[in-house]
């Protein structure tokens, strides 16, 4: 069984000596100008334990250090070398095109949550009063609408300037009431420091939010089939 980490170009570039899952050595499977980076296993090595996730992630990150990569989702398995080649051949042009799109760029993740104030100063203004639970059906709906608009406004204040600095961005639907923004940005490697400073500035401007910025990640949100799924749930609900 073959565990796949990423698809790259420049197949002649030597692979890093880093080990893959279960300490298996990395191998390249070549198809013309593309290279799939894999490790071979007799048993499925990828029980989704945290260290396995990181092992996969670090292989992709190491590859990303000296070449453009299309990162593959944790758990991408193929039966044999032939099926890997067939996949590379079938989607050859698409893979090359996407590699150009992500070359020299990294993914940064940003999440903003409504945060309890550390100093308690402005807390009274922003915290919804539990006492004022809606009494009528009408106020219940309008409260929900107002909260939605407020969140959208706050999200835009963070997202818009960040998206302007990025090459591309993807927003996902927030996964809880207090999650204001969940987004991924494709950023030129040289812009990472600037992006980070912008996040810090936005954080200072909006103390009522807790803004977390992670990365640089391989461009998981900006490659291949994941795109459609992200597009569907992208944007505000």
């Amino acid at each position: 069984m073959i565990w796949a980490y990423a698809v790259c170009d420049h197949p002649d570039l030597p692979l890093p000596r880093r080990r893959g899952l279960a300490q298996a050595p990395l191998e390249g499977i070549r198809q013309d100008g593309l290279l799939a980076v894999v490790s071979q296993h007799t048993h499925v090595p990828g029980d989704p334990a945290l260290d396995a996730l990181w092992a996969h992630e670090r292989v992709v990150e190491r590859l990303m250090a000296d070449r453009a990569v299309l990162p593959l989702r944790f758990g991408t398995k193929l039966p044999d070398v032939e099926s890997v080649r067939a996949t590379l051949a079938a989607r050859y042009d698409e893979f090359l095109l996407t590699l150009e799109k992500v070359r020299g760029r990294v993914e940064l993740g940003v999440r903003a949550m409504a945060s309890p104030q550390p100093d308690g100063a402005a807390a009274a203004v922003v915290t919804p009063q539990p006492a004022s639970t809606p009494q009528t059906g009408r106020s219940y709906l309008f409260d929900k609408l107002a909260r939605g608009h407020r969140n959208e406004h706050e999200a835009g204040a963070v997202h818009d300037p960040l998206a302007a600095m990025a090459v591309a961005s993807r927003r996902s639907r927030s996964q809880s009431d207090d999650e204001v923004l969940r987004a991924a940005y494709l950023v030129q490697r040289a812009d990472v420091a600037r992006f980070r400073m912008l996040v810090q500035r936005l954080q200072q401007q909006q103390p009522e939010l807790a803004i977390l910025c992670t990365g640089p990640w391989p461009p998981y949100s900006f490659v291949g089939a994941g795109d459609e799924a992200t597009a569907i749930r992208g944007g505000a609900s």
Partner: protein
Amino acid sequence: MTDSPADNLLATPLNLDPFARDLRRLDDVLTRRLQADPDNVERGLAQLVLTLIELLRQIMERQALRRVEAGNLDDATVERLGATLMALEARMEELKDTFGLTDEDLNLDLGPLGRLL
């Protein structure tokens, strides 16, 4: 490059607490399977059923909010919609209490499609 996940934190807020529950969620995703052992079967079933009900409730609520926002509902209809959804939400809270379930329990990870709710 070291191997610490902390290396991937670029900018962190002063208060990290709001993100802490994600660690629990991640732990759940990694370790938990549907609880189908005999002792737990009732709770597991309740979890599944309530998840579906909650999904429907949220879809109805979003639809209602869109219609209210479009502004072509009369006051009586808005009131009736709101009262129904409010009652549903309250009932849902009671059911969650009864079965000892949290919002986190009523969510399914659909892989590439994201989370259900």
